[in-house]
């Protein structure tokens, strides 16, 4: 597992590009990865992408649940207002 390298290294590296840089307002840490990091840094940090996609998925699902609750409320109101339909017997 590779640790983050110094800014000099990253910008001097062959083929280095704009995204291959660090914010100069901060320092590059050199502590060994601990806890969650040991998982997230595997597969060349591909799990970070998985985490991001899952967060987006959870966000969409959260909205689904909210919409669902409102729909259920709507159905309840309709049921209370409208007379019973008899198509349930034939269905």
């Amino acid at each position: 597992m590779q640790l983050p390298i110094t800014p000099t290294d990253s910008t001097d590296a062959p083929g280095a590009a704009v995204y291959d840089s660090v914010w100069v307002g901060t320092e590059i840490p050199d502590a060994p990865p601990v806890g969650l990091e040991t998982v997230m840094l595997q597969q060349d940090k591909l799990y970070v992408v998985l985490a991001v996609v899952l967060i987006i998925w959870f966000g969409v699902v959260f909205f689904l649940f909210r919409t669902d609750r409102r729909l259920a409320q709507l159905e309840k109101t309709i049921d209370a207002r409208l007379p019973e339909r008899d198509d349930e017997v034939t269905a």
Partner: protein
Amino acid sequence: MSTARPVYGQAYRVITAVIALWMTAVILAGFLLAIPRLHIVEESARNLYFHVPMWFAMMSGMLVSAFYSARFLAKARVIYDVRAEQAALVAVLFGVLGLITGMVWARFTWYVGTGKWWNFDPKQSMAAVELLILGAYFVLRSSIDEPRRRGRIAAVYNLFAVVTAPFLLYVLPRQMQSLHPGGEGSPAFSQTDLAPIMRVVFYPAVIGFIALFWWIYTQRVRLRLAERRLEETV
């Protein structure tokens, strides 16, 4: 105030099915296509396909919201107010997702070993401020009971809110040192700072997430209009 109901028929169903397939393809391509390797970011560069379109979707939501706010001011129709409110709501969803995905990306990429989830990157901080400005729109709405007054005052505030967005999200962060690209000049459609293969996925991802915004937004509008119809027929 009148309510004109938009029609959601066969075309709507086809379009939403296309969005679902499109997004599936984007996610697959996002993970499967090989990308050039950079230090530090490594494979997490793929987050470009997912984190960045959140902000495109949020900005689309704010623009749609502002558009209908302006229309409501011109003519106070219920549907304009409903559309403005729901577009802003879905914009908040994507803004919050953009913020959280950015936090996670930075935490496990540039801030390994520091335990820093929030690093006060200018763009990050100002995105948070923008979300607060947008959040105040809903606080304002909930504080006014009379619908017509609520719609009008909220619309005026919303137009103010959307004007702050470009400055907070695009202008100011680029004047400061930031982890985000753009400090060296405009990164938009730059020929040099994005590998060609990544454009193949990135642009469809942006289109896909904006389309996903539209889907969720129109669904919310339909729900809200149905609720209103019931409220009116007490």
